[in-house]
């Protein structure tokens, strides 16, 4: 089929939906949340480029502080007559619920576009299912579900039209990631088509219903028992009319575009006996499976539910073949404790009602089941299993499919080998690293093929959960017909491995079909490569008769001026080998794409890329391999024998990508997981690692302090310990007085290193004879790996230094404290994690952490492995994440428990005074617990108490035993990013600070929403760009420090570990010691700032030196002592702001896109810096009595 007369595009579901939504709205109020953020970002981008809606105006896109705020703004804009939309998902939709009831109750036309996502329950998940939209089904919003990228586009318009006509607001949803992030070829709506479906009179009618002082009325009254009920019933007619209206709109749409949709769309045999009812992308899988089954004579069918609310009996019964004997309703949600999942109950109720009304003659067997939670795969094999179940005499109700439930045995077994005919597709799998451009190149490939040929294309991209060294797998399908396969590729005819070391880590060829092409980026030539492959890879190549090709893409890229970017090289290989297009045609297309991409850069750049393409073809070699395995098999499941059983049986499987195989019985029932599991996952993501030079080292501890991944550790010990040291273990006499015969060692855990370079950058010691040699330098890992593994084992056996003998007050001393936050998945060079590591070193064994959702909750708590660890005594940080918006309240709750249980314990201690001994009780209750030595003493007393209590047989003793741990002072920390503290959680944070309770708040301030991809927050500084501030942030950064200081009794510090590590350390200790609320604002450099993070420390220095980030402490204790509590810890600015700012892309970009605006904003930003500094300087010179008194 030719696409000549159609506007064809290859885009993802988010863009498809946003494209239509943008054109039919005037206002868009949003808050970023995965996986919907892209829709809002696109709307903002289009608005910033001046792209107009169908009425010729540019929609006003506003980012709010939370989804609650977005919903309120939407409500307000709607109530005043604007066509208004929003984009959201998951917890975001939950925060909108209160307003949604209002919007629906007031019969307000609007469409909320939702990339449907799991809700945080036993764990958070960013992936797709229908839990969020199902939780909104009671709001009165209609619900329209799209099943594909094309539908996401079409239904965005259909929903708008139907809402305007019916006055019922609509949730238009599609599956998060599976549809929102799938790239597919689709026909785009023209503005004419859009206009013809949205009659002007409906728009005007909506405006007329808006609040207007020229014609005033009141909406939003409070009602009493006399009329509220009747008022709720007034809307019935509108809901009764909605299915008809939606059907009409769909019919009109069909006439306009040729794409026909039904409220309940039936596919299958006319006389089907088994029918599946389903909603969302899974319906595509079922429909395709049904077609295949029908072809083989199996009478099955499927109803794709499109309009789920209002659920129309008439339309449903009309769609259902009367031959249906058994129905399975598949819900992509979980409603614990319900009689069944929501759609199952709807179908059941509808069928019974239909029977009662005589619309059906008998009731088929109806069962419900769950599938696909959190983007769990849903394949034709699973569909087949459901149909097979329906054929059984007593099919399972409340079944699950896609998992192995070996506890309550809900799961259906399925044959993973059952596949549909995939012969019409070319399927390619590409294994790459997040940073190597593989996904970008594949998206480009899809565009090239999708938009320049008649072929259809589909792309889906899978990422792992790490922010550094993350692996990506790209799934690409091409074929002559539209590709309706919303599931991953399980058998590919093309496998590309873009990183050679994956051959030992990922079972790529499991996915290869017989005779598939395997393309490997190899540093070895075609004669060497065979023996370099692990045995199992060789075996699969032989068994599957793989066509094996190699290219040294890294060298080709370097030699052809492409630097380290191998993506174009690998993409060219794909075009040359895959057979998707004839080779010559492929190369022509790729060169055409290069010309299009680089035309602005000039012929030179184009020629350079052409040269790389030609060089690629010259360096692409087929490997003629022997039919014999020559290498040993490499075991992928490698965790050491000493790892706990849970790690071996569960964590290790997740680590190697076999988590789908884990049965329910292996899961913890309540989301509780063991601490400190990152230590078992040696990721080896950097070939360059720090190498310590003891003879140059001055033992300052700076490198250990700044290391974001706790990879560098230091101990001092008696020299006799070295007697058993392995050869090559590095050591030096400690350079401190009063420690005779004492040695110092710095150990690098090089398998956990991300190669960020911060340690080298911070090292102040240089070899006097060779200025290029520091005390720590990056070097090749491979030559030292074996030796260092032995050294690490030895180092681990040297006891950690006695905490009571360490000087906590210096950076030098802090290096000897055991980090209980280690080897996280944070970005290489992360500016947040050094603070968390320090927190764990200082207070880890008595630390409670409430962590707001964001980067820190992801690298801190995303499975498979987590970095919060414990010490040899089994003590360590107890960590939890509740939500994004509630973290302050959540942490405050932890404090309340600590205080309450301490009170309880104290009361019971007094109650048991006689049994325990009066002086012993007094000692415990009056213990100071400020110094580490005092805490250690209290621990001993509490241990003694526990022993005593065990011998006392009384209920009071039992109770006291259960809370006795609280007698050791708890350190409660509320941790989160600026998105939490400045925006969504600000109200709660303010309240928690005002509570006067002993909480410590650590704000890891990256000045932007880092985790969701760089959206502006109220911490974003003036003149910086960010998403939703593409033109540069015009208003100033909120001064959270001054707001907190205004309470008087809040300890406040602003720190930057890279600029003044000593001050950061001091502030953390002061905050913790202060018996009241504390707030630490911690400057955190971030990849979202746009520069190589190895310069992060230098930028921190400049942030302080320019006055952008003045270091300060406000200590209420000083106020009580009649001293000035406000201490300015950094000197007067010495460099202009731009000297700091323009090293970062976030600022620099504006000087390129809009130099005049950049100039103006930078001037303004400098004025703000000057003004702020002046204010601070004045405060620093005031008297105690000038500040709020501390009660």
């Amino acid at each position, binding site marked *: 089929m030719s696409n000549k007369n159609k506007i064809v595009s290859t885009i993802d579901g988010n863009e498809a939906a946003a494209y239509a939504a943008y054109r039919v709205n005037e206002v868009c109020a949003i808050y970023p949340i*995965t*996986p919907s*953020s*892209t829709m809002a*970002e696109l709307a*903002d*981008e289009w608005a*910033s*480029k001046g792209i107009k809606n169908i009425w010729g105006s540019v929609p006003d896109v506003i980012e709010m502080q939370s989804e609650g705020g977005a919903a309120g703004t939407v409500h307000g804009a709607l109530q005043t007559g604007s066509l208004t939309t929003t984009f959201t998902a998951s917890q975001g939709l939950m925060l909108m619920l209160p307003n949604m009831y209002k919007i629906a109750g007031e019969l307000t036309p609007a469409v909320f576009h939702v990339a449907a996502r799991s809700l945080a329950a036993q764990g958070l998940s*960013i992936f797709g299912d229908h839990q969020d939209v199902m939780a909104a089904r009671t709001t009165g919003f209609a619900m329209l579900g799209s099943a594909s990228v094309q539908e996401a586009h079409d239904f965005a318009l259909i929903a708008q039209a139907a809402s305007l006509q019916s006055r019922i607001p609509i949730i238009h949803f599609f599956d998060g*990631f599976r549809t929102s*992030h799938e790239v597919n070829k689709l026909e785009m709506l023209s503005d004419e088509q859009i206009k013809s479906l949205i009659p002007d009179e409906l728009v005007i009618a909506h405006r007329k219903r808006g609040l207007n002082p020229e014609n005033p009325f009141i909406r939003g009254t409070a009602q009493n028992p006399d009329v509220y009920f009747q008022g709720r019933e007034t809307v019935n007619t509108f809901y009764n009319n909605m299915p008809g209206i939606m059907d009409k709109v769909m019919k009109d749409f069909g006439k306009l575009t040729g794409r026909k949709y039904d409220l309940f769309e039936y596919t299958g045999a006319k006389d089907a006996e088994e029918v599946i009812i389903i909603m969302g992308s899974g319906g595509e899988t079922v429909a395709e499976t049904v077609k295949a089954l029908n072809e083989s004579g199996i009478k099955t069918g499927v109803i794709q539910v499109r309009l789920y609310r209002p659920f129309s009996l008439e339309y449903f019964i009309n769609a259902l073949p009367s031959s249906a004997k058994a129905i399975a309703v598949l819900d992509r949600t979980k409603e614990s404790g319900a009689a069944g999942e929501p759609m199952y109950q709807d179908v059941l109720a509808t069928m019974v009602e239909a029977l009662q009304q005589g619309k059906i003659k008998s009731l088929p067997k109806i069962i419900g089941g769950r599938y696909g939670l959190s983007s769990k795969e849903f394949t034709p094999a699973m569909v087949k299993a459901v149909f097979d179940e329906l054929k059984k005499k007593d099919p399972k109700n409340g079944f699950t499919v896609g998992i192995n439930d070996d506890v309550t045995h809900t799961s259906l077994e399925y044959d993973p080998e059952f596949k549909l005919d995939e012969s019409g597709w070319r399927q390619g799998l590409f294994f790459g*690293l*997040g*940073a190597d*451009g*593989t*996904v*970008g190149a594949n*998206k480009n490939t899809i565009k090239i093929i999708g938009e320049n040929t008649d072929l259809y294309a589909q792309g889906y*991209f899978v*990422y792992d*959960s790490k*922010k550094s060294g*993350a692996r*990506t797998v790209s799934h690409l399908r091409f074929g002559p017909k539209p590709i309706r396969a919303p599931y991953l590729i399980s058998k590919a005819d093309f496998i590309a491995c873009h990183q050679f070391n994956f051959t030992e880590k990922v079972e790529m060829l499991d996915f290869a079909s017989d005779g598939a092409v395997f393309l490997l980026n190899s540093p070895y030539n075609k004669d060497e490569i065979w023996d370099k492959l692990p045995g199992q890879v060789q075996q699969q190549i032989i068994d599957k008769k793989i066509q094996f090709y190699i290219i040294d893409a890294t060298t080709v890229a370097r030699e052809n001026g492409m*630097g380290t*970017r191998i993506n174009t090289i690998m993409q060219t290989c794909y075009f040359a080998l895959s057979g998707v297009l004839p080779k010559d045609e492929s190369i022509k297309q790729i060169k055409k794409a290069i010309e299009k991409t680089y035309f*602005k*850069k*000039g012929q*030179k750049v184009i020629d350079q890329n052409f040269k790389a393409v030609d060089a690629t073809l010259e360096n692409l070699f087929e490997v003629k391999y022997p039919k014999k395995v020559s290498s040993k098999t490499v075991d992928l499941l490698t965790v050491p024998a000493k790892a706990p059983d849970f790690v071996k049986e569960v964590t290790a499987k997740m680590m190697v990508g076999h988590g789908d195989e884990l049965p329910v019985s292996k899961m913890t029932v309540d989301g509780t997981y063991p601490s400190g599991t990152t230590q078992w996952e040696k990721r080896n993501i950097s070939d360059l690692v720090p190498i310590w030079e003891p003879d140059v080292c001055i033992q300052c501890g700076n490198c250990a302090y700044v290391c974001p991944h706790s990879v560098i550790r230091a101990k001092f010990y008696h020299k006799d310990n070295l007697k058993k040291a392995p050869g090559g273990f590095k050591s030096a006499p400690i350079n401190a007085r009063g420690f005779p015969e004492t040695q110092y060692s710095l150990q690098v855990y090089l398998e956990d290193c991300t190669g960020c370079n911060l340690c080298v950058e911070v090292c102040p010691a*240089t070899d006097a004879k060779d*200025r290029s040699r520091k005390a720590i330098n990056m070097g090749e890992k491979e030559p030292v790996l074996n030796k260092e593994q032995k050294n690490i084992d030895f180092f681990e056996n040297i006891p950690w230094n006695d905490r009571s003998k360490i000087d906590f007050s210096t950076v030098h001393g802090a290096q000897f404290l055991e980090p209980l936050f280690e080897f996280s998945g944070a970005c290489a060079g992360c500016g947040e994690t050094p603070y968390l590591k320090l927190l764990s070193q200082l207070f880890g064994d008595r630390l409670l952490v409430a962590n707001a959702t964001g980067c820190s909750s*992801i690298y801190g708590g995303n499975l498979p492995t987590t970095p919060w660890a414990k010490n040899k005594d089994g003590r360590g940080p107890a960590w939890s994440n509740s939500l994004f918006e509630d973290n302050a309240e959540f942490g405050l709750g932890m404090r309340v428990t600590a205080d309450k249980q301490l009170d309880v314990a104290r009361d019971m201690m007094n109650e048991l005074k006689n049994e325990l001994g009066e002086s012993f009780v007094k000692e415990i209750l009056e213990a100071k617990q400020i110094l580490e030595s005092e805490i250690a003493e209290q621990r001993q007393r509490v241990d003694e108490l526990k022993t005593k209590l065990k011998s006392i047989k009384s209920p009071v003793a039992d109770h006291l035993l259960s809370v006795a741990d609280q007698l050791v002072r708890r350190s409660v920390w509320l941790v989160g990013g600026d998105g939490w503290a400045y925006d969504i959680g600000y109200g709660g944070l303010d309240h928690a600070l005002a509570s006067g309770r002993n909480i410590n708040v650590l704000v890891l301030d990256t000045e*932007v929403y*880092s*985790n*969701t*991809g*760089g959206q502006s927050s109220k911490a974003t500084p003036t003149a910086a*760009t*960010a*998403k939703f*501030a*593409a033109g540069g942030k015009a208003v100033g950064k909120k001064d959270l420090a001054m707001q907190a200081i205004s309470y008087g009794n809040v300890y406040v510090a602003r720190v930057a570990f890279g600029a003044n590590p000593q001050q950061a350390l001091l502030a953390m200790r002061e905050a913790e010691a202060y018996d009241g609320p504390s707030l630490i604002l911690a400057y955190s450099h971030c*990849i*979202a700032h*746009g*520069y*190589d993070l190895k310069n992060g420390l230098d930028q921190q220095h400049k942030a302080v030196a320019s006055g952008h980030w003045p270091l300060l402490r406000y200590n209420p204790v000083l106020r009580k002592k009649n001293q000035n509590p406000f201490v300015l810890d950094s000197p007067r600015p010495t460099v202009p702001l731009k000297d700091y700012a323009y090293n970062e*892309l*976030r600022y*620099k*970009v504006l*000087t*390129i*896109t809009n*130099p005049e605006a950049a100039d103006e904003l930078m001037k303004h930003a400098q004025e703000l810096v000057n003004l702020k500094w002046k204010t601070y300087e004045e405060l620093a010179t005031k008297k105690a009595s000038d500040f709020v008194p501390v009660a």
Partner: protein
Amino acid sequence: MKLHTNYMGLKLNSPIVVSACPLSEHIDNIMKMEENGAGAVVLFSLFEEQIRKEEAAFKGVMSETTYAFPEALDYFPNLDEFNVGIDDYLDNIRIAKEKVDIPIIGSLNGITTEGWIDYSRLIEQAGADALEVNIFFIPADIAMSSSEVEHRYLNIIQTIKREVKIPVAVKLNPYFSATGNMAMRMKNAGADALVLFNRFYQPDFDINELVIKTDLHYSEAGEIRLPLLWIALLYGKVQLSLAATTGVQSAVEVVKYLLAGADVVMTASSLYKNGIPYLKTMNKELQDWMYMMGFDTLDAFRGSMSQQHISDPTAYERANYIKILEGVK
């Protein structure tokens, strides 16, 4: 009193030209320079390695942070026009050409042959009236011979002259074994003008921190002697325009350079010290001097103190040195 001069075919209203410096990064400044009587403006230098480094750094940041994590597929607003390369430099030329009438001279500091070719062509296409090539090259490789260094200079000039039609000035350093001969060979290679001289970056050491100090300092009036010497020596001997730069703090240095034979005299540090309106002062003082001396035009005295025209040509050579030494005695 006429201050007209001809610089490699460009007709200027004043011999005082603003040399390549960051002041010309802003169009307002360029307009102010014209208002205050600048004969021409050499735009700030486009450093090839800086462009390439920035491009590589930003591309690196962009590519390494794009499509790497499912929640954050990228971190920056998507801007079609985003380009850290040469575009803003070219825009500066275009805007300057729209806003002022005085000649705008692009300044290019290249590294690679491709860089010289690409960027000189783009600068011409953007509308620059001429190009100043700033060959800032320290032959740190001790295996490189002086003839190789010379060849490198000549090769760059030939390459650029093949690419562009606008006049090309070469800003060179004074440290050739035979500077005069090199000047002639540069002329033969196609140079339309010589700018004397480039001030090499000369590092200093911080003996406390044991690091190399990278501070820059403005040129001082005393520094004019070396360029003055060579302009006086070359005037009339090589048939190309001569521009003097370094040490111009007032009209006094302008006069001296003109007397030596310069077609134009360039300054930047005086404008940093005294502001752009100081151009007007210098022009006025030049005119005052000419009036006092009875010169109507620049040509009336240009080169009058060059080696060719003074009564004792050996004053520029060894004899002069001996004379000074004797004076010291």
